[in-house]
């Protein structure tokens, strides 16, 4: 029982902080700075987390819906949104579950370092597809499967364990394939290893439309 309780505390308090700290380094900030200002209109952020993207949204954004299942992370994001004077409506749920938004109602979906941790990624992408306007864009920054077979082998080997300590994070997902299989057309794709251990840092950045 003791063990289970500790796991609960870990998931509830420690994990959000760890995610917050591990995501907030110089390189990831630079990447956010490059993509987030390109969002405009009605924005849906999938996995808004502690709101690390919030400082980078431009005046072109009308409102933000932030999907985030963790109330603890949401609290951190809420503070950031107040600092920025931004209107964020939080949706406390997984992105896999039906989003309480009408079809074709969103101009920009922003998803940064999120898809790795959604258990059923295709299901979440189907939701995104439903709510995105035909003229809309999905902006993504995701780590995933490396093209080098030696690194990919490590990713396959590590993922089952890593998932448990990393909040459900999969290291071996081929992000571009997931997007195209879900029916998105990729307009731009930037790929590289960011600094850090290679199984964790191969990054897919870009945007896609329907």
């Amino acid at each position, binding site marked *: 029982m003791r063990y289970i309780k500790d796991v609960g505390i870990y998931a509830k308090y420690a994990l959000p902080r760890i995610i917050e700290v591990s995501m907030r380094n110089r390189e990831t900030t*630079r990447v956010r700075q*490059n993509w987030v200002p*390109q969002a405009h209109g009605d924005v849906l952020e999938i996995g808004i987390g502690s709101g690390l993207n919030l400082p980078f949204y431009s005046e072109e954004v009308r409102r933000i819906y932030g999907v985030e299942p963790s109330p603890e992370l949401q609290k951190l994001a809420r503070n950031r949104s107040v600092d920025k004077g931004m209107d964020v409506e939080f949706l406390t749920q997984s992105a896999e579950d039906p989003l309480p938004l009408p079809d074709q109602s969103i101009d920009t979906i922003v998803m940064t370092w999120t898809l790795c941790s959604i258990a059923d990624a295709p299901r979440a992408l189907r939701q995104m597809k439903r709510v995105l306007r035909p003229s809309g864009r999905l902006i993504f920054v995701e780590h995933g499967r490396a*093209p*080098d077979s*030696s690194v990919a082998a490590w990713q396959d080997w590590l993922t089952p364990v890593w998932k448990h300590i990393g909040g459900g994070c999969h290291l071996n997902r081929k992000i571009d394939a997931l997007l195209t299989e879900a029916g998105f057309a*990729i*307009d*731009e*794709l*930037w*790929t*590289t*290893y960011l600094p850090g251990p*290679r199984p964790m840092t191969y990054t897919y950045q*870009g945007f896609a439309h329907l």
Partner: protein
Amino acid sequence: MDVRTHWEKIYTTKAPDQVSWYRPHLETSLALIKRSAPDRTASIIDVGGGESTLVDDLREQGFENITVLDVSQAAINASRERLGERAAGVHWIAADITQVELERLAYDVWHDRAVFHFLTAHEQRAAYVRQVARSVKSGGHVIVSTFGPEGPTTCSGLDVVRYDADALHDEFGARFRLIESSKEMHQTPFGTAQQFLYCYCRLE
């Protein structure tokens, strides 16, 4: 056919050495890049890198911070596969150079062999120049190579614009100080010759 579709088709149907612009090594480009890069950590972008071996040679020379941009994902994939493990430090961007939002002041060296001459519309050229001015550091170097005045008028089934050094420099404007220009006769894999022009500028 849009630009992307055209180039995806070229790079998925033709072998690397079955395109007119193929050259085993881009010697002139490499020499200019080595001259302009302050050191091996210099940030270099190869625009329209396609399946060119320039990135291989730059890696070989020890350059650590290389970005290869091409509108064709197929070309990027081919280059990445050719490089194998040596591709690890390279940033790959599949995007249209006139539309992409590159990071501000990100590059010390900008290299383009045979992209700019495909921009036949004034707005495309203006967007390209804005891109260079925005993403190259001041004091950085810009190497652009196009077909010369006696070069071909079409390439890969597309119209091109031919330039002499003055005309090409005029497109970029006074902020780009022309350091040097040269002409090169390029031998295509099909035994024909094409005149290329190289302009080497410093962004003030």
